[in-house]
């Protein structure tokens, strides 16, 4: 859409800034010029939209400005620092526990089987202990030949 040389006058006419005679001339021009008629329609739509925006009353103004100030003010970092420190501590704890578990899972050296005491309550029987070549332990009882056993 090419601009009309009357377009500035149309805006002034729309805002009520022109004298009576000039206003009548602009009004007549708008009736004949499609470009200025379209520009006028745009100005009207713009005004309708701006009317729909809520207005801030005098009573709300202080609260409105306080909200803006809070939004612009730098954030307080006290709590953020606490949680950051807690995260770091927890991560360190996980690492320490993991290291402990890995280290403690290393195979331990296991001692050989040790017989601390060995007896029998069977009359006439003896008991002996010995180790074989593999390091396994045997406890052997020698029972009497009495057939009651």
């Amino acid at each position: 859409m090419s601009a009309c040389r009357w377009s500035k006058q149309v805006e002034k006419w729309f805002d009520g800034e022109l004298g009576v005679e000039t206003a009548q001339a602009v009004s007549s021009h708008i009736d004949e010029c499609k470009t200025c008629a379209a520009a006028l329609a745009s100005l009207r739509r713009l005004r309708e939209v701006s009317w729909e925006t809520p207005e801030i009353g005098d009573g709300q103004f202080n609260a409105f400005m306080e909200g803006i100030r809070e939004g612009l003010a730098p954030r307080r970092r006290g709590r953020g620092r606490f949680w950051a420190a807690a995260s770091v501590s927890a991560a360190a704890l996980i690492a320490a526990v993991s290291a402990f578990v890995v280290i403690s899972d290393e195979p331990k050296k296991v001692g050989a089987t040790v017989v601390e005491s060995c007896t029998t309550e069977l009359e006439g029987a003896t008991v002996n202990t010995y180790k074989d070549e593999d390091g396994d332990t045997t406890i052997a009882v020698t029972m009497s030949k009495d057939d009651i056993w």
Partner: protein
Amino acid sequence: MKLTAISCILAALGAVAAGRPGPDQREITRINVLAVHAFSQGRGEKVYDRELEQYKDALDGLDYDTYHHLSSKMLQAKMGEEAVYEINSRYKLCVEPLSRESSGQTRLNVRVEMTPKEAQGRAGWERKPVNVIKTTLLISPDKKLKLRGLKLDRGELVVVLMLRD
């Protein structure tokens, strides 16, 4: 940030809990028990039941030619509590874990209780079980303990115990 920190703390607590041995791990002792009837039939070579294949080395030194698998069981016992395994009508194996040492060994009381045969015609005979073997020992998880010399049907009963980790 707050959610991340809480997640990390929970994860850390979980890791601590996982790293500590639970009461079951610490207190329950598991022991594999194998009961074998060893006897001789005048064979030229030693014959083992199929179930005894992995225990051949433990039985090889005995002076018998036939090895018959009687039973096997995994005994579970808490520290200070005696687990009883009735091998047959004459023999009972009783195992009581006493402590677990830092070396990996476990201290056990082990008893083999025997009930004598019926003593027919013997005046005053009481058919009371006796501890034919009574021992306290420190047993290693990777070693076998063999109890032998227990009379059974013209041969003997051999009991092999192996501590499980």
